[in-house]
């Protein structure tokens, strides 16, 4: 604490001042704020319970607008200047909340009430009103102004928790030369020892800590990570830490001026993990144990010693273990009136009782609170004397028996024992069981590579935690979700006896604090209600994260442009400079069309397509997948994939083919070109390139390792430029090349290796448009020169670039298949007219056997056919069809559609049930519930049925 530096902040619109080093919680307490929020269900006033992440009451909203953050835990939020903090419930205010009315009808709103009502007329009618009552705080109003980062890390030893135990473990590990990471949730190392006054190795705690830190800082292989919380341990001990980077720098607001991330998500791979996470103090269960002013004793001590704030001026202490006695001493020394210590143990061990006696503080042995009074501030506590087995009260406050006691006080510090913070051990696969002597959850078996140290490995003997008397409906077990003993009782009565049912029915432990101060108490209560020992019960599954984690931190920088990689064409800059309208096609960003000023997309597409039919067009097909297949068995290898026979392929010739999955479904299409018997080039669809490579490799490595084949993807090595149109040959001939382009020397489906403009070139005569086409491949960086040369060579002839839209239109006119558009994950070769080819190939190929299965030989499968519109209107892709005689259901759908460029006819391709046998029939076209057109089933293509244009 630095009391010389005052820090102004706001709480619920009022201005307050704290000091540097304060948490929001300590600053509020120091300013006398007792009610920090209203409870979730019953809107009861609530004050701070704890001084740590386990806090169930002090969940506040920090900031506003786009940077608004809901449910910030007041004890762990560092106070920074001008912090704007709000309570999350309470209307019109936390101090006066009309919602409190619900508290007076609480028994109506017990566990599962919503299952029993709101049935008529329907839940949806009540839902909005109910939803408005739920939820803690509001979502931000806009995109996060902050940024986040992910960082990977490796180490030999990861020590989680930088208290005395963690520091020692880190030092021990570092001495062996190991790479050590020490993560501490707080911004300061030292844990409890920072303030609890205990020494380490006979040295004052703080001296020891500084020495330990100096020592660690000097070791090169040690990484200290303050402000970093371990939130989950996953498979193979991979651990996630969340570092609060911005908060550590003490800056608030104007985050855009910072470059630093707000939080950093560390993914740590450690050989060994030490959990030095300390323990979490538990409350006591008694009537009205939720009043503001009732606080965990350890928290009260921390606020006092660390932040100089006393939890009250007249303080009563109630405990079931030794730890709270230190608080009594500290309070007394600070001049606070300590009204006594109620200790549920009987007898109280010698050491604490003599310590109390020496301070003149009265100890009430075998005594536990049985009730409290005070609305927004605790006023009175009733104490009762437990009977021998703690199953009843000998006499209680208000009564007359010995031990009955009514204590007027303004604060009650409670300690219900400690349970080690071993959630992470549970994440790592460890099991925890209830230990009756300490009332804690302790490890049952070791987890390889994960150990606990210090407070996380201790068990502190403790007495009874629960008052046996009092109204169950007023005994809170889960403060954040307002779950009481009565809820658990009702759930048990209704047979929700499994702990997991109990959790889901009452929502106990499901709140934002994930039961950090209610899990063990739930076991106690249920055991008592069922008359069994808590050690017979299993706690519910603990899952990551240990504390809630900002979604932004998890995503890190993997958002927006970095959400998924994007690939650019080698000639991207040229396209961008020439009016390209870009879209994403798989990973690739490609020109859809090249818009001239004032032109629409449709207009451009028709112009480009027309140019190809009339003169020539230039298409950047660089993403076309290209694989080189080398080795003595290359032909044999490829022949096992294609439905076409490759064994007859001649040198320098290409063949189009389909590749199937083993199920017979079409997987990809493309050409295979034989350059030499041990060197082939395979092309794939642009989107399929990676998958085809992976597919070929899988078979090569796993199934046919004896075949001598090597596969090398070369897609990006080559720029692929398709020059298509009647003038293609003329234009290409104008460029300097050593390749004979004449029709006789270079026929359709031929390929030639040579030079173009001096660059190495591979030219293929394949056509996706139906026009004479040269598919020119030159090294990627030569692409633009060739592209520009072709454009200028053809300028006088009207050669122009075309985008994907025009290309797909042209191929549709020809009835060529577009995998993924006309086919889906069920399409087999016969469905698209390739059945014969597949059947005729004698040798086996992948997928062949499946084509003989009964399902694949049915004649009423969906088959790809052409559609001509008899009404004259354009088809809409995705419309469905009904064939004559069919009154309901669908008989198929339109997969592709366009209006032909030369003849202006609306045409389409469709998958139609038994379609090939229906050629000539009329079908009805339906779109969005209406019959929109009639169409005739025809055989494509729609232009140049003789296929003459292909040859120029």
């Amino acid at each position, binding site marked *: 604490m630095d009391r010389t530096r005052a820090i102004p902040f706001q709480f619920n619109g009022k201005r307050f001042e704290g000091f540097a080093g304060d948490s929001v919680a300590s600053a509020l307490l120091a300013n006398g704020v007792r009610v920090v929020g209203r409870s979730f269900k019953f809107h009861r006033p609530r004050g701070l319970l704890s001084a740590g992440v386990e806090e169930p009451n002090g969940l506040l909203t920090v900031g506003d607008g786009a940077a608004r953050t809901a449910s910030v835990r007041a004890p762990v939020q560092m106070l920074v200047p001008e912090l704007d903090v709000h309570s999350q419930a309470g209307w019109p205010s936390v101090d006066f909340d009309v919602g409190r009315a619900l508290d007076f009808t609480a028994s109506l709103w017990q566990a599962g009430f919503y299952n029993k009502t709101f049935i008529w007329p329907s839940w949806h009618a009540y839902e909005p009103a109910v939803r408005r009552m739920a939820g803690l705080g509001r979502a931000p109003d806009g995109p996060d102004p902050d940024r986040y980062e992910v960082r990977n890390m490796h180490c030999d030893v990861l020590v989680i928790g930088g208290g005395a135990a963690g520091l020692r473990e880190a030092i021990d590990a570092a001495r062996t030369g190991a790479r050590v990471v020490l993560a501490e949730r707080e911004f300061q190392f030292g844990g409890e020892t920072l303030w609890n006054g205990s020494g380490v190795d006979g040295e004052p705690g703080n001296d020891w800590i500084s020495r330990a830190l100096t020592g660690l800082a000097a070791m090169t292989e040690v990484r200290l990570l303050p402000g970093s919380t371990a939130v989950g341990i996953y498979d193979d001990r991979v651990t996630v830490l969340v570092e609060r980077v911005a908060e550590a720098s003490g800056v608030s607001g104007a985050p855009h001026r910072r470059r630093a991330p707000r939080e950093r998500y560390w993914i740590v791979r450690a050989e060994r993990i030490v959990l030095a996470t300390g323990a979490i103090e538990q409350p006591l269960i008694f009537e009205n144990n939720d009043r503001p002013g009732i606080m965990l004793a350890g928290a009260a001590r921390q606020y006092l010693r660390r932040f100089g704030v006393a939890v009250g001026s007249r303080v009563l202490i109630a405990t079931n273990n030794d730890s709270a006695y230190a608080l009594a001493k500290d309070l007394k020394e600070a001049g606070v009136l300590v009204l006594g210590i109620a200790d549920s143990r009987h007898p109280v061990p010698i050491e604490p009782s003599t310590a109390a006696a020496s301070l003149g503080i009265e100890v009430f042995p075998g005594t536990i609170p049985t009730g409290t009074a005070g609305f927004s501030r605790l006023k009175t506590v009733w104490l009762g004397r437990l009977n021998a087995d703690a199953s009843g009260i000998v006499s209680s406050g208000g009564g007359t028996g010995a031990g009955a006691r009514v204590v007027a006080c303004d604060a009650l510090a409670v300690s219900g024992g400690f349970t080690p913070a071993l959630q992470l051990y549970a994440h790592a696969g460890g099991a925890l069981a209830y230990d009756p002597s300490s009332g804690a959850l302790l490890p049952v078996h070791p987890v390889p590579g994960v150990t606990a140290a210090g407070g996380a490995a201790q068990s502190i003997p403790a007495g009874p935690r629960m008052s046996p008397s009092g109204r169950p409906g007023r005994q809170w077990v889960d403060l954040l979700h307002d779950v009481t003993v009565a809820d658990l009782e009702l759930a048990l009565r209704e047979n929700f006896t499994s702990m997991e049912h109990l959790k889901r029915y009452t929502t106990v432990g499901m709140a934002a604090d994930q039961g950090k101060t209610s899990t063990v108490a739930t076991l106690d209560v249920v055991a008592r209600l069922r008359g069994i020992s808590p050690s017979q019960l299993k706690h519910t599954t603990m899952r990551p994260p240990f504390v809630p984690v900002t979604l932004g931190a998890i995503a890190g920088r993997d958002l927006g442009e970095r959400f998924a990689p994007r690939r650019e064409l080698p000639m991207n800059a040229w396209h961008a400079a020439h009016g390209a309208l870009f879209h994403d096609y798989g990973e690739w960003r490609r020109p859809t069309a090249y818009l001239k000023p004032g032109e629409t997309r449709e207009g451009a597409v028709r112009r480009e397509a027309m140019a190809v039919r009339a003169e020539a067009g230039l298409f950047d097909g660089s993403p076309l997948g290209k694989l080189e297949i080398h080795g003595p068995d290359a032909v044999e290898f490829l022949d096992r994939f294609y439905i076409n026979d490759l064994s007859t392929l001649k040198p320098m010739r290409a063949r189009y083919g389909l590749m199937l999955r*083993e199920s017979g479904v079409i997987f990809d299409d493309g050409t295979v070109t034989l350059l030499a018997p041990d060197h082939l080039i395979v092309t794939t669809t642009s989107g399929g390139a990676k998958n085809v490579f992976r597919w070929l490799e*899988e078979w090569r490595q796993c199934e046919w390792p004896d075949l001598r084949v090597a596969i090398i993807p070369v897609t990006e090595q080559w720029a692929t430029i398709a020059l298509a149109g009647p003038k293609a040959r003329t234009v290409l001939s104008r460029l300097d090349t050593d390749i004979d382009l004449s029709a006789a020397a270079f026929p359709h489906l031929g390929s030639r290796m040579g030079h173009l403009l001096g660059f190495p070139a591979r030219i293929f005569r394949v056509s996706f448009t139906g026009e004479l086409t040269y598919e020119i491949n030159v090294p990627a960086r030569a692409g633009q020169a060739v592209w520009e040369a072709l454009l200028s060579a053809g300028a006088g002839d009207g050669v122009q670039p075309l985008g994907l839209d025009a290309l797909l239109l042209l191929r549709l006119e020809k009835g060529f298949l577009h995998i993924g558009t006309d086919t889906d994950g069920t399409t087999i070769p016969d469905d698209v007219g390739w059945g014969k080819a597949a059947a005729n190939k004698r040798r086996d190929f992948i997928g062949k056997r499946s084509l003989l299965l*009964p399902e694949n030989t049915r004649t009423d499968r969906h088959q790809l056919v052409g559609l001509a519109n008899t009404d004259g209107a354009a088809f809409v892709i995705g419309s469905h069809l009904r064939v004559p005689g069919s009154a309901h259901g669908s008989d198929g759908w339109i997969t592709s559609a366009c209006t032909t460029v030369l003849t202006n006819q609306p045409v389409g391709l469709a998958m139609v049930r038994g379609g090939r046998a229906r050629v000539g029939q009329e079908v009805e076209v339906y779109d969005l519930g209406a019959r929109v057109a009639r169409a005739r089933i025809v055989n494509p293509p729609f232009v140049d049925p003789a296929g003459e244009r292909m040859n120029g």
Partner: protein
Amino acid sequence: MLRIPCPHCGVRDEPEFVFGGPSHIARPESSVSDEVWTDYLFMRENRVGLHYERWLHAYGCGRWFNAVRNTLTHEILETYLMGDPRPPLTDRS
């Protein structure tokens, strides 16, 4: 996140790998019955406990390899090369 020991590259993170399903499945001749063929197509070992499976180190060496992994604990007991026989292992869990 699994940490998978590639026999060629050492231990790497799960996202570097592609899972390939059970290994040691023999592809039948195409002359087999529909019954045998569909078993090959669809039926898959799906054991609780030790699972013999194959992985591709897609973002690394590009090699497929076999692994024996416990499907309850995710422990990888052994990895071995494609084509090697199943190592005889017993479930330690």
